[in-house]
């Protein structure tokens, strides 16, 4: 058993082995330690996979040694490597940073179950990214969704429950739409393997069931990815979830649905259905523009800090979809790059919020007034992450903005200029709402609030590591860029 062969399978099997064991552990600290260890192990596997992908090795793994269309196949390419890195990285950093914050928010007796749900969410997300079988993706989507409902429902605030109920309803409808779409395609092509589907769909391409299937899959996955009109569940879910859960979910949960959407659209639909690019662009471009403008506008007037950042996540998803809807190599590179950079920026922002929450109970903007003097390190990390979100040069956000604007300008003509204006307007609004936070923290008087001291060292160290990650990937984004470029060529490669 030489582990490097089984890497793709181990990525999912390791958390699956850990989950039942963690449930049986009684001591809460032991459960946390086991979860963090497993998460770290999956992070190492993800790194190994990325290294393999970087030097050209393509991972193909047949479950149960049954050949492709008959058994289930796992496939890891550049795009999946990027998303895997974010999922496992976000989970590991959130777990390491978050013991005290979680311990405060979740009762001791319930923690083993909470951490088991966490590991299952991680396994579900990794399972989706690794799998190349349409129905298998549905099953793992269900595992990750159910687990994230449990994580969000762990929130101490009573309002977490209606929020998570709405999240469940929307998530289940999204997953079932996806199931209907896969069923219709299976009905017309007879296979469930995505590669095989792409080949066999050519001769039934323009029949109505396939078009309806494309519609169902796109709407279902857009709903799970909280793309603009279908994002209603996201703000409340992220606001009332425990702080550390928001760090994990904000960094990667919605991006996995986008990953599946792009794989389906660019592998199965793009090349076969006549004019699918036009449908794809005409459907997603306006939605992403609305997402960027309206979500950022709402974020401007938001009073609660976490909901403000949740709305900014909806806007950033708009950027990712905007990049992809250009249906060009440059556009796709920009969108995959932004998937990576946004995960880092948003992850560090929510980590900084978790640091704030160690001492400040309610996270309204008025509550964090003047806290910069007492918590200089936390606010320093938040400013750094905020700059990366805006896209100030030297940070990771800038690189993806740079690629996005060049991709849009390459489009040329009136739409190019209009889209540049939209992107620029979006980042200007980002400047305003990040500066609102900074101004409240640095310049507003402390007032009669109780004295606040700096966050504990553990969570602070992790926040700073991720914040510096923002800088590192701003100055030397070579890893992220090569991965996204090969991902874009793979996605577009299928599309002549």
């Amino acid at each position, binding site marked *: 058993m030489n582990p490097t062969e089984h890497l793709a399978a181990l990525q999912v099997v390791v958390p699956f082995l850990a989950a039942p064991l963690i449930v049986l552990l009684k001591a809460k600290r032991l459960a946390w330690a086991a979860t963090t260890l497993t998460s770290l192990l999956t992070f190492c596997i993800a790194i190994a996979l990325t290294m393999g992908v970087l030097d050209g090795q393509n991972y193909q793994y047949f479950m149960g040694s049954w050949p492709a269309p008959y058994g289930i196949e796992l496939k890891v390419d550049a795009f999946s490597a990027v998303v895997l890195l974010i999922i496992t990285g976000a989970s590991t950093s959130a777990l390491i940073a978050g013991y005290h914050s979680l311990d405060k928010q979740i009762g001791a007796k319930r923690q083993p179950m909470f951490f088991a749900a966490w590991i299952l969410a991680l396994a579900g997300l990794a399972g989706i990214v690794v799998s190349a079988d349409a129905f298998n993706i549905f099953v793992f989507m269900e595992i990750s969704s159910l687990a994230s409902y449990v994580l969000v429902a762990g929130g101490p605030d009573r309002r977490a429950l209606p929020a998570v109920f709405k999240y*469940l309803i929307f998530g289940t409808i999204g997953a079932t739409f996806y199931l209907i779409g896969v*069923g219709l395609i299976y009905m017309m092509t007879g296979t469930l393997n995505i590669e095989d589907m792409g080949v066999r769909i050519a001769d039934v391409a323009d029949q109505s069931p396939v078009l309806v299937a494309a519609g169902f899959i796109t709407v279902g996955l857009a709903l799970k990815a909280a793309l603009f009109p279908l994002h209603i569940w996201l703000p409340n879910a992220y606001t009332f979830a425990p702080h550390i859960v928001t760090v994990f979910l904000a960094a990667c949960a919605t991006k996995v649905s986008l990953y599946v959407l792009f794989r389906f659209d660019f592998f199965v639909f793009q090349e076969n259905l006549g004019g699918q690019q036009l449908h794809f662009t005409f459907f997603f471009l306006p939605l992403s523009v609305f997402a960027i403008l309206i979500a950022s506008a709402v974020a401007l007037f938001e009073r609660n800090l976490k909901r403000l950042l949740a709305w900014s996540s909806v806007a950033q998803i708009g950027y990712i979809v905007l990049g992809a809807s250009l249906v060009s190599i440059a556009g796709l590179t920009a969108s995959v790059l932004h998937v990576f950079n946004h995960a880092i920026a948003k992850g560090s922002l929510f980590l900084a919020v978790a640091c704030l929450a160690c001492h400040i109970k309610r996270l309204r903007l008025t509550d964090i007034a003047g806290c910069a003097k007492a918590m200089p390190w936390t606010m320093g990390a938040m400013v750094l992450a905020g700059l990366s979100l805006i896209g100030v040069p030297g940070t990771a956000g800038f690189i993806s903005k740079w690629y996005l604007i060049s991709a849009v300008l390459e489009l040329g003509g009136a739409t190019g200029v209009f889209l540049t204006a939209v992107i620029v307007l979006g980042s200007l609004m980002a400047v305003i709402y990040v500066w609102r936070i900074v101004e409240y923290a640095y310049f507003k008087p402390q007032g009669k609030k109780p004295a606040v001291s700096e966050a504990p060292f553990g969570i602070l160290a992790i926040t700073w590591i991720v914040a510096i990650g923002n800088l590192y990937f701003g100055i030397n984004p070579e890893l992220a860029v090569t991965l996204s470029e090969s991902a874009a060529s793979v996605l577009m490669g299928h599309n002549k």
Partner: protein
Amino acid sequence: MELLGYYNYWVFAIVLMVGFYAVIVRNNLIKKLLGLAIFQSAVFLMYITMDKVEGATAPIIQEGVTDQIYSNPLPQVLILTAIVVGVSTTALGLAMVVRIKEAYGSIEEDDIIAKDRKS
């Protein structure tokens, strides 16, 4: 016979939309979960309609019998999995409804929103 060919799919479409309607319009959380369950069972019906082959029996191969044609086993496997997914989602949903009832004292969506807005 020609009409029956599509009848299954029409029933699927109607039951799917009845479930969807219940989820959107109904105010009571348990009724929403019932709607969701109907919504999911409709999908099961669509998959299983696919596997029927004219004059075939269930895909269980007896030793002696050779000239028998069988229905398609694959959709049945998928639906076995999907049923359990449906049950799991419903169970989790109901647990949430119980907790909401204890926290808010009501399981009507408008009462919950009103209570939140007041606090």
